[in-house]
């Protein structure tokens, strides 16, 4: 793996980690939703720093151009994160539904009491 791509992916991973850290610090990101992002950052960082890791991975997967293996890893993590978000959205919409139903029924009860 070339030195340039190594430097570039190190910077990228550090930047991602810094942004996630800062978002958590400012309470704009909850810890439970940041874990996958942090994991992604650390994995990319590990691959960027330890150059033979990526070569081993590339060889194992039969990828001739080993930096492409890094892309593969990153893509995999992105898919994981998106899937995680889909489950979070599903849960939120479920709770939202229950809340709206509760509200409609409580509103009816309240009107009933006032009449």
């Amino acid at each position: 793996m070339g030195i340039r791509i190594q430097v570039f992916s190190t910077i990228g991973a550090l930047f991602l980690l810094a942004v996630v850290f800062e978002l958590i610090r400012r309470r704009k990101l909850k810890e439970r939703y940041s874990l996958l992002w942090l994991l992604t950052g650390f994995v990319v960082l590990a691959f960027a720093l330890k150059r033979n890791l990526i070569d081993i991975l590339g060889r194992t997967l039969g990828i001739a151009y080993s930096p492409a293996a890094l892309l593969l890893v990153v893509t995999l993590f992105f898919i994981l994160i998106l899937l995680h978000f889909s489950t979070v959205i599903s849960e939120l919409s479920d709770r939202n539904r229950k809340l709206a139903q509760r509200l409609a029924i409580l509103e009816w009860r309240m009107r009933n009491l006032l009449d």
Partner: protein
Amino acid sequence: MRVLVIIPAYNEEESLGSVIEETREHLPFADVVVVNDGSLDSTSRIAEEKGVFLLNLPYNLGIGTAMQTGYIFADENDYDIAVQIDGDGQHDPSEAMGIIGPVLEEKADVVIGSRYLEERGYKTPLARRVGIALFSSYISLIVRRRITDPTSGFRAANRQAIRFLSRDYPSDYPEPEAVVLLHRNGFRILEVPITMRERRGGRSSITFLRACYYMIKVSLAIFIGLFRRVGNGD
């Protein structure tokens, strides 16, 4: 014996008034609750004027959620029988007794009014008929008996079914899924013949693209549902 008629309504100002009146005429002993699913027109005002129970959902959540709200209401207020009648005027309240009957006689836990059980000259567009036929065979296969009209929303449920549906009700396009869900949880389902009218106001919520989404979504939901453990989802 306390009976509740659940009328889900989304922008049904043209038809809701007469649906309520006809329901009262034919089921004078029943209470009526309108579940207003975030309508943008005067649906809620009409229900208020008619003096029925009115549940206003704060925004549009879909027919399944609206219907379930009605079932939660029925369960919390201890109704023995709940009848679903659409707010668009397609269901004829004069036929509601025929749907309630088998529940009263304890012949079934849930009764579905079917357009296709008897030939009554109801004209369905070909595409929809094909869709319904597909669903019908798919669902009949699962519940191992003939269900001719799984998409019909003209239904009645007894106490146990009310409680079950108040806890677990499918979200969008819920009717076919609810049939399978009820069957898998041991409820006895019976179809009775009805005649469905042309809709009076509003528009059908089914366009071609939605119909495709409908077919895929419902088939998938039913299929995956078969791998769930029996019992309520919450």
